[in-house]
């Protein structure tokens, strides 16, 4: 690890100011960033911890029924506090990593990082959530831009994520055997005006919607509705753990299971 300066502001404004300096970087739970620093793969001059910012922490239900989660809220908190309002989201959070990871890692960090195998991005995209930063509100459909790439600008902080709560939803995760990240994860969310399906883990493009399945499920919300669909292996991740064809197959299996579990 290289030397860096460490600050832990208590307001978003102070964090934004601290991040304005050259080579400064936000630090959430550190579950991704700290290992990267340890391997000397990044060398920020300053780390700006976000977990001391009270306004960025916690889970709350809004008047319109949506659920807001502060960007610095850890997975364990989401697992317990979102359970009543948005059980599928809480269940997703409860199955990320291990207890240590869940008690450190944050939703803001996960969504900012946009690891192609991360769980949260699928929930954000399938829910049609809004990513709220210190500057603006970004619709999920505009936010995710390919693996490890997002609409965030330099120094921009995710202060919260606002989730519309679907009528029914479910997340099915097929774990990569070593990392236990998603080898394929599918989040299905059924709203009054239609169904959204987001797939993580599978594609070289990162998290994405499966629009054919959405159309089929919006017409007929049952696992059989997607029997006739097939997922192309083109552009699917092909690695030690599985071929693109296998991942394409799993997308369909996990989608059917998610629908069945809704």
């Amino acid at each position, binding site marked *: 690890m290289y030397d860096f300066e460490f600050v832990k502001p208590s307001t978003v404004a102070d964090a934004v100011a601290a991040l304005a300096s050259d080579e400064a970087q936000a630090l959430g739970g550190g579950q991704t960033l700290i290992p990267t620093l340890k391997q*000397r793969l990044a060398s920020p001059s300053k780390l700006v911890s976000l977990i001391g910012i009270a306004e960025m922490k916690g889970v709350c239900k809004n008047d319109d029924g949506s659920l807001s989660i502060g960007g610095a809220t850890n997975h364990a908190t989401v697992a317990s506090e979102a359970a009543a309002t948005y059980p599928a989201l809480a269940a997703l959070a409860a199955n990320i990593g291990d207890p240590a990871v869940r008690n450190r890692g944050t939703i803001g960090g996960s969504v900012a990082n946009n690891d192609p195998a991360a769980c949260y991005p699928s929930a954000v995209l399938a829910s049609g959530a809004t990513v709220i930063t210190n500057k603006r509100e970004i619709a999920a459909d505009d936010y995710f831009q390919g693996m490890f790439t997002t609409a965030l600008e330099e120094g921009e902080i995710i202060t919260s994520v606002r989730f519309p709560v679907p009528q029914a939803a479910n997340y099915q995760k*097929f774990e990569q*055997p*070593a990392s236990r990240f998603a080898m394929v994860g599918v989040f299905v969310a059924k709203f009054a005006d239609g169904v959204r399906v987001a797939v993580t883990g599978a594609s070289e493009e990162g998290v994405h919607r499966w629009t054919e399945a959405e159309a089929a499920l919006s017409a007929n919300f049952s696992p059989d509705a997607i029997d006739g669909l097939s997922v192309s292996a083109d552009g699917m991740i092909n690695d*030690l*753990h*599985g071929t693109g064809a*296998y991942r394409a197959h*799993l997308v369909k299996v996990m989608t059917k299971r998610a629908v069945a579990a809704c």
Partner: protein
Amino acid sequence: MPKDSGIGASSKRREDIRFLTGTGQYSDDINIHGQAHVYFLRSDVAHGRINKIDTAAASAMPGVVRIFTGADFEGIGGLPCGWQVTDRFGAVMKEPAHPVLAQGKVRHVGDPICAIVADTLEQAKDAAEAIELDIAELPAVVNMKDALKPTSAKVHDDLSDNLCYDWGFVEDNRDAVDQAIKNAAHVTTLELVNNRLVANPMEPRVAVGDYNRANDESTLYTTSQNPHVIRLLMGAFVLGIPEHKLRVVAPDVGGGFGTKIFHYAEEAFCTFAARQLNRAVKWTSSRSEAFMSDAHGRDHVTKIELALDADNNFTAVRTETYANMGAYLSTFAPSVPTWLHGTLMAGTYKTPLIYVNVKAVFTNTVPVDAYRGAGRPEATYQLERVIDKAARELGVDPIALRRQNFITQFPYATPVAVEYDTGDYEATMAKLEEIADLSGFEARRKASEAKGKLRGLGVNCYIEACGIAPSNLVGQLGARAGLYDAATVRVNATGSISVMVGAHSHGQGHETAFPQVVAEMLGIDENMIDIVHGDSSKIPFGMGTYGSRSIAVCGSAMVRATEKIINKAKKIASHLLEASEADIELKGGHFSVKGTDKSCAWGDVTLAAYVPHNYPLEDIEPGLEETAFYDPSNFTYPSGAYACEVEIDPDTGKVTVERFSAADDFGNVINPMIVTGQVHGGIGQGIGQALLENCAYDENGQLLSASYMDYAMPRASDVPFYTVDHSCQTPCTHNPLGVKGCGEAGAIGSPPAVVNAVVDALQSGGFKHVTHIDMPVSPSRVWAAMNG
């Protein structure tokens, strides 16, 4: 009634108190005043020519003490290989130089190039980034069969090719085996891969070198399974330090699994640098370094043929194996695919003719050496898989086919040069059928089917050879060391006892089990006895712990030394009790005179030995301390039968192990609880190999599974509750305890059980074309096989 102390008691593991309360003393806990830290700059290419190493700028960086390169080791010995194999044609194996730091070329990702010694580790890492390396990348040799093509690049320029040896065993049987296969009523052929593994002990390797200029003495603290072996190899062959000036200490060691047997470059470096710098030098491996510098395990590619006559009797076995040595010969690497593998190819069966061919190959990968089981898992896996396949081809019950071919008469001389002293394979199979409830399997299969799952049953046997010996035989086979062990029993004045043992405990529970033996022999409380191990300055000598040898070999030495103690103590007692020595009995910690009520306590005798006021000084020396060396006359042969039941999710190909049962014959058992634990751990590792673990390289020799993100270790949730039994006991006939060893059995016996079960599940689920899937049987491989 189970015993509550002595042999056969499940005494609680006394060492666990310190392990579980954080009071263990591991090598990394050792910090020597003024120590410097070393960081190894390692190759990031698999194969390359070192054109230039410029350390000038780096040497001037803050805190840097000195930067060493291969040039600093010119004229100093390379890392020695401890076993020389002779090939089919009578020629000795090729034995390339293995420099401490790379000289001329780098040969695998992780090969150390520079050692940067600095005041702090961070300073050493900073300096490493300032070193200018000019390395011309060369084509990497990765695939073993490609490596043997004449057009292949050569890992070692001074060798004629990448073939280390071409070994045939038993070479004289070759034609007879070929003939038997030609004439067989049925031949089953199976090609398989025994996957490369990374041992991943919980504690990574550590080396701390220290030097005392006052007496010219070097000390190495290291994570070793065998400190005396390191002292011998490093002192005599690498650094030229005589034994009396070199102390090697292996304190608490957090798991070895074989990979901490070997003498590594980092140990030699830290010892060497401490002398050069007159300052202690410490290295602690990171997990990432461990993946590319700890010796790997397995990595065999095998074709096996099993010939049967018209009555389904096995008539011959022929195998051809390519065994990966990696870039250099690790300490015992050549012995693993040969003498630890070929000699086990009879299994538990009376196959009259066997021929084993092994081609050991150099590649641009991390060296491969012994890993829990070492050669025996590879033998067991191929044999038990091919028998299962044969049963399926012949339409016979796989258990019946095994039973029909069991060896039933003992001692039994196999056609692969070993003699099994005892065993009862029918007994362990019958025990397995009972504990695994095999008769209930069909009902369980139906229940799985009702849930939409495929269920399979895999059963197999295994034979293991522990405590490899005797030394004169292994010498003929190419070992450059003896394979005896030693123990000193030091009885103190008040009767407490320290036993200095050559075996090293790094998870095996010796500190509990060894005292149980001495306590039993003397009839005293086992808590009066401690063992001392892991320090060459405290123990007489020892070959260490591997190959499930500790209780069979070192335990026997301890018994012999304790017998000497008893003999002398009886002499002292006869003097104190004024009786003839022949009439003295030792029982329950008391010496008594036969047929009288005269007696004295253990403590009376031990005190007399050290305060010899009333003592036969003219006949015997004061003191009560005895040493014995024990060289076994044969291996021991534990055996057993294992059963695994899996479920497969046909939609995803994911395999889950639902039940696992093991019936082992370890001969006599000292501590049943510890033995059960050893079997549990071994099965866990076997399931890891069968379902999860895969050390993979790409075609450029880059390690794909270089961290836990991609190398799948088994977790608690990947294994079921095991049913294990070791009540079938045919005691070893040639060691005083009648023990056989239990450390590796689980890892040897379990992989074929898992894969047999997977194939059974797929076959019974209608996937008749699937006759084999290579390990690890990952979901994607199962799915591909189902859809293949």
